[in-house]
Every structure is written in C-alpha cells, then in structure tokens.
C-alpha cells in the first residue's frame, strides 16, 4: 500500500472527566487542544488541518456539533472535518487524522474528541433511545442498557463465565483509574469484589459498578508527517496500523457472543502493521470497556485471547497492569475507572497508549517492556470496531 507519509504522534492532552462541567463543549475542546499542543511543543500556527469527533449531537444539544466545536478545536480558517461512528469515534478520530497526513495532503493535524453528555435531560441515557429502530424496536420501550445486558448474557452463558470474573475487570480498571489525572470523582476507587457484586442490578446481568458513568470531557492529539516529526528533538511514536469495520445494523440477526467487526478492524490494522502474531507483538492494550464484560469480549475480538479464554487469563493476572509476561490491559483505568464522555473516552485510550510508549504514564506505567500498543473503540448497536496500533 503506497502512503505518501508515515504518521507520528507528537503530543496528547485531556481535560478532567466530570459528571457535569461548567465548561461549554467549545471550552472543553480548547482546554484539551491546548494541553496537546503544549505536549507537542507546537502552536496552532503549526497545525495544517483539524479533525474533530463527537458522538450524537443530542447530548450536547447543538445540532451542528462539528461546526460548532470547530473554533474550540483550533479550526478557525483551516481545513476541518468531523467524522462519526458512534462510540467508535474516539479511536476513529486518529484514523481520520492519519489519512489526512498519510495521503500527503497535510503535514500536521490536530485531532480533538469531545463529549458533553450532561445537558441531555431527563437523563443522558434517554438520548440513546433514538439510535434504535423506530418501527421494530422503539415501540417496545427500549433502553440502552438492554442491548448490553443481552450481549453480556449471551457471552456469559456461551462460556459459563461467573459474575465474579466481570466484577474483577471492574475492580482492576477502577483501581488503575486512581492513578489517572482525569479520573471522574467517585468512579475510580479501590472497590472489593463484594462491593461490586452487591451493587444494584440495573438490567440483569448488568450491575451498577460494572457500568461506566455519564461524563463530560475532551481530549486531543497532535499528528505529523515523518519529515515534520524528525525535526523535533523527542523521538516520535508512530502510527503503525489502523483498522475499522462495521457489521450489519441488524444486531438481532447476529450472535452477540463474539464481536466479529472488532476482529475485522483488528486484522486490517495488524496487516498494515506487519503483525502476524498479535499476542507476541502487542505489548500493551486499551480495549474499549464501557461495561466490564466488554473488555474481555473485545480482547477476544482483538485476537489477543482465544474465544472464551479472556476470562481465564484475567484470573491468571495476564491482563494486570504490572504483569511481566502478559499483556497489560487498560492501564489507564478505562471508561470504568476514568469516565466515559463517549468520543473523548476513546481519545483517552489513545493518549494512554502514546504516553505508555513514551514512558510518560507516571504511576500508571506498565512494568514490562513495550514497543507496540493498541487502542480500540466500539460503537452503536454492537456494530463498529475501530483500532489503532502505535509503536516506537
């Protein structure tokens, strides 16, 4: 495949994640973008183009969200694009930025992801209703939790996975989140398995402490072509592979025990990165974890564990942050431990892989040697897989 440019990651920035921010969506973008530019040692004048992502306009409540966020994302007077694939958008943002530069059209790109869920009333969860089919699904009184609970039950029962295993994912991520500067108050914490197992049932088998919260927040990353990046003193981190895939929107026609669209996105990224053995060549991973079971579901879809085996590996400590022989999963704390402002959450995972590879993750730094990391996001009605692989 002939790309004009290799693409480097030069810096990343995030805001805090909060249940409700004073800041407007634009202000959140500005804050994140400034931190990213500073991390990269650049100013807005060095930026050739801007990409933004944000999930449904219904959250922030401004129905031209891309254009609205533009000036907070530094896009005034610049070529600008917003792309959208539901929850997959956070990671897809970097893919969009990647092809702006890989195509040879631009040397630098600022990528901004933002979500402000708090304005949606009576509860942000209600804004998700409109993603279901208006004829065959909405009249049943659907709610977002249903689809996750249905998938979790299918996955659980296909392999006989006990609830404690899922509680253990939530525990791991919420503990990891304690070391993340963006962590939403009350979300990260040292919870016992008993606490998590005793949390209220929302839609069985989903329990409250196994679900990520509603959040406001933003994140940004600066990308550059290889010749631009090589002028800077710090060794860049490269985007080695990107992949994305959508399955049919008829989610009830699919067996939910396995996310094949995540596998297809992963294979596309592995091929581009020249990776034949992901378990050997991916050293740190940030799988999308809006619900505790989903982390395991996605680790299997990413081919980092055989089908049904991710839970067993969890019990063995294979995905722990301080593992030496396994693959640390969600060292950031993830959506369960830091928060879930939809598009910004995926960006947070990308930023984590970047900082881990730069050795800048501070107390979250994984123990084992790492040269390549992967971040993945998921979206819509069990439909979207987006994957980015970075390497030193």
């Amino acid at each position: 495949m002939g790309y004009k440019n290799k693409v480097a990651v030069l810096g990343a920035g995030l805001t805090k994640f909060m249940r409700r921010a004073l800041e407007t969506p634009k202000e959140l973008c500005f804050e994140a973008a400034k931190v990213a530019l500073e991390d990269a040692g650049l100013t807005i004048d060095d930026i050739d183009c801007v990409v933004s992502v944000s999930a449904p306009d219904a959250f922030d409540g401004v129905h031209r969200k891309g254009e609205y966020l533009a000036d907070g994302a530094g896009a005034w007077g610049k070529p600008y694009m917003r792309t959208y694939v539901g929850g997959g958008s956070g990671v897809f943002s970097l893919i969009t930025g990647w092809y702006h530069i890989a195509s040879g059209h631009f040397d630098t790109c600022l990528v901004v992801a933002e979500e402000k869920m708090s304005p949606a009333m009576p509860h942000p969860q209600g804004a998700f209703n409109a993603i279901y089919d208006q004829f065959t699904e909405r009249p049943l009184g659907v709610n977002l939790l249903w689809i996750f609970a249905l998938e979790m039950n299918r996955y659980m029962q296909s392999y006989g996975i006990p609830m404690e295993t899922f509680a253990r994912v939530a525990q791991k991520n919420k503990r990891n989140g304690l070391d993340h500067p963006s962590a939403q108050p009350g979300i990260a914490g040292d919870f016992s398995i008993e606490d998590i197992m005793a949390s209220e049932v929302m839609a069985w088998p989903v329990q409250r402490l196994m679900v990520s919260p509603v959040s406001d927040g933003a994140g940004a990353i600066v990308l550059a072509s290889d010749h631009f990046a090589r002028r800077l003193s710090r060794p860049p981190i490269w985007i080695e592979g990107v992949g994305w895939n959508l399955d049919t929107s008829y989610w009830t026609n699919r067996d939910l025990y396995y996310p094949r669209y995540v596998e297809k996105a992963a294979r596309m990224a592995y091929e581009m990165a020249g990776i034949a053995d992901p378990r050997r060549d991916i050293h740190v991973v940030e799988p999308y974890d809006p619900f505790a079971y989903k982390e395991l579901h996605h680790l299997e879809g990413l081919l980092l564990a055989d089908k049904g085996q991710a839970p067993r590996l969890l019990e063995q400590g294979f995905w722990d942050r301080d593992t030496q022989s396994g693959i640390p999963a969600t060292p950031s704390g993830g959506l369960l431990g830091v928060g879930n402002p939809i598009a910004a959450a995926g960006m947070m995972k990308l930023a984590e892989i970047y900082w881990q590879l730069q050795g800048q993750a501070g107390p979250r730094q994984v123990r084992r040697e790492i040269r390549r990391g992967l971040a993945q996001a998921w979206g819509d009605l069990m439909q979207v897989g987006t994957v980015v692989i970075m390497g030193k």
Partner: protein
Amino acid sequence: MLAKIRQTRDARQVSGDVPIYHRYTLGVAGERFFKAMRDQQQLLASPCPKCHDRLLPPKMYCERCFEETSDDWVPLSGPGYIRSFTVLHRSLDEEPLSAPEIVALVSWEGVRGGLVHRLREITPDAVSIGLPVEPVWAEQRVGAMSDISHFRPARPG
C-alpha cells in the same frame, strides 16, 4: 422492492417523538457574562492578549489566535450601533404577525462580534445601519439574554 403507491392512504407512516430536552451550563465565559448582566446591568467584552481584539459575547479563548483571553474584561459603555437588521412579518410557525418585528445585530466601536436582539420603540422604515441604540434592561433578570428586554434608539445625554 420498488413499488408505486397509487393511493396516498396506502403509504404507511409511523409517528413518534424524541422526548429529550436540554439543560445547558453557560460555560466559564458565559457564567461571568450573564452574571454581570443580571447583577450589574452591564455588558462585558473579553480582550485577546495577542490580537488585542475585544470579543463580544466574551469568550474564554480567541478562536483566531487560539489563546486564552485575559481576565480584565471591558464593560461596554455608551450606545451600540446597528450593524444589520431585518424586519419579520411572520412568526416561526409562519403565522402572520399582528405588527412587524425588528431583529438587529448590535455592535460597539472597537468590538469584534455583536449581539442579536429585538429593536423596539422605532418604526421599521426609520431603522438604518449605523443607528445608535441602547439596551433596555428587564425588571426581572435571571442571567440570560432576556435580561435585556430589547434595544431602542439611543437617547441623548
């Protein structure tokens, strides 16, 4: 599966609502701007330390320079002027209005930006671009654009 519908009654439709509403926070800049309107009947503009423009409505950052605006917000004094205006003859639902309404973009000298608001106490044919105007403050103010009831031609003195 293309089919011709010969009778409109054969076309099937399903009706429904998307029942959400929004409660917006005003933002770091917005809180300060609207609280000054509510509590001091004052309009403020925020200066950009790089291009020195004064932004109205005030913002946390200047989008051209991509820098944070400085803290010393400037109260607008004296009348504003009409930058542009239009005269409405129909409501949002396209019903005829009992009397025409004037909507204007009002700005001040030395300010980048302006406010959109209603212009009253003047007939449409007397309005011109450049006309000096002043805000009429509402009795009850809550920290919203409605804290200004309308603009009217500036009175001398």
